[in-house]
């Protein structure tokens, strides 16, 4: 993968255009999704089409030439793409988070430079998480500033998108333990991206390892990312709403398949019906799935509005509120995606487990992607505010 896009990207001008482009792309991505999953064929051509469509630049502020769409729209775009292929929906996850980090923590010159790159079609990957550090929020990777350059050493994992990226934003600590992000060019000496992701779900995200061995970048490629959490900003909720949108998309896709295959099921012997779709228990179960999926979509849209408010007026209250509503979307999307992707087999019967349909990809994808951060702590986060008035902690997982 080179450090530059093959073609310049289209620039999307409005929320409506973003939805229209995503709807069209989702139809195309749905066609090969099952085969890509089955063969773990990495979606290189699809990603080029995805970023060239302009959808990776829709959150760039208007002042820098972007459409600065609502996060209701961002969530809808990611949901639409994920309903077709959730690996493709997940890959821009960190890219979108980084666009917002630039907004909050980069210098004016850096904003002009990187927002320009994004609008031109550059894709950010990520080298954030570390599989060996104490917990998700701690980093052993070091970024050491020396004069007008910075040196990076460390080992990363779960680096979704890095393999396909033109620039790899990398998190590391400075000597004061503050988290910085360095933008490393994909072909920089010392940067190795390893295609080591072998998870049973989200199989084509290439969420594998990255090593950084004495990688050097100019100081102009480093931003003080910690500032986005030292003070209240929407960055945590933005990271999370994209997660929730991926899982909502999986739920929507699974419900569609449940309906399609339940329609084709044979009638159960005791039902005294001619057709499977007349089974009263099947009908009621689809009713139960449908309201849950639609409720999840409705809360996802509410979360988008709450993120918009936190972006427009960032303060303790607006950011806490965004975290709370986005947490609801996380819980509902995780549960609904898992439920719908499991129920679909129950309603469609044994014939639906045949390998040719590859319908298990919905559950494998749901189970894998929802592990990003546990829903059990989101109940706690919401309850602690409702009962004790405690605001959510500010970090990239709230």
């Amino acid at each position, binding site marked *: 993968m080179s450090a530059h896009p093959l073609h310049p990207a289209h620039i999307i001008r409005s929320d409506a255009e973003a939805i229209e482009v995503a709807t069209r792309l989702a139809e195309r991505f749905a066609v090969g999704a099952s085969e890509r999953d089955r063969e773990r064929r990495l979606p290189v051509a699809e990603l080029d089409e995805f970023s060239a469509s302009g959808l990776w630049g829709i959150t760039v502020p208007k002042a820098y030439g972007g459409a600065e769409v609502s996060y209701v729209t961002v969530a809808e775009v990611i949901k639409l793409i994920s309903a077709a292929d959730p690996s493709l929906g997940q890959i821009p996850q960190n890219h979108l988070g980084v666009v917002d980090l630039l907004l909050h923590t980069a210098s004016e010159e850096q904003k002009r430079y990187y927002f320009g790159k994004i609008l031109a079609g550059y894709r950010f990957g990520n080298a954030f998480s570390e599989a060996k550090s104490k917990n998700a929020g701690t980093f052993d990777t070091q970024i050491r500033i020396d004069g007008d350059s910075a040196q990076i050493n460390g080992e990363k994992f779960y680096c979704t998108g890095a393999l396909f990226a033109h620039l790899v934003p990398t998190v590391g600590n400075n000597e004061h333990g503050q988290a910085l992000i360095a933008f490393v060019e994909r072909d920089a000496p010392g940067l190795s991206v390893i295609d080591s992701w072998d998870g049973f779900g989200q199989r084509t995200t290439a969420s594998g390892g990255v090593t950084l061995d004495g990688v050097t970048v100019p100081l102009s490629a480093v931003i003080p990312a910690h500032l986005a959490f030292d003070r209240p900003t929407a960055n945590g909720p933005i990271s999370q709403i994209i997660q929730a949108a991926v899982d909502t998309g999986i739920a929507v896709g699974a419900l569609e398949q449940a309906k399609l295959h339940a329609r084709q099921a044979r009638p159960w012997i005791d039902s005294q019906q001619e057709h499977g779709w007349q089974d009263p228990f099947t009908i*009621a179960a689809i*009713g139960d799935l*449908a*309201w849950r999926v*639609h409720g999840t979509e409705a809360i996802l849209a509410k979360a988008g509005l709450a993120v918009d408010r936190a972006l427009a007026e960032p303060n303790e209250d607006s950011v806490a509120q965004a975290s709370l509503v986005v947490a*609801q979307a996380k819980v509902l999307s995780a549960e609904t995606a898992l439920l719908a992707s499991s129920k679909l087999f129950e309603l469609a019967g044994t014939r639906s487990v045949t390998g040719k349909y590859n319908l298990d990809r919905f559950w494998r994808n749901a189970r894998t992607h929802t592990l990003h951060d546990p829903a059990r702590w*989101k109940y706690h986060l*919401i309850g602690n505010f409702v009962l004790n008035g405690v605001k959510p902690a500010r970090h990239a997982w709230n």
Partner: protein
Amino acid sequence: MTTLTLARQLLDSTRRHVERSDDPYVISRFGDLQIRVDVAAALLERAETHPSPVARAEAQIAAAEALIAASNTEFELTGQRSELPSSLDNPLRHTYHAVGNYHLNGVH
């Protein structure tokens, strides 16, 4: 009184009874209930802005499930259960059927 208003009231009275707690399981119960109430409110709002029989039915189911959960939580955390109106005249199980028949079979 609507089902959703009743669910909200039960959540609120249970919260006032408990006052505060450091127990992670008690805290999480309130998180669960708040989500159920808010998803019902979001579906009701959707049914009002984009009215249709199926949207109204989905909002009814969400509100009824929130109320049942609120009533169970009230009993679990306070030892009491407020009396709820009977739902026998408008049985929820047929609402699931109506929603499912629309989405599975296109039957309005």
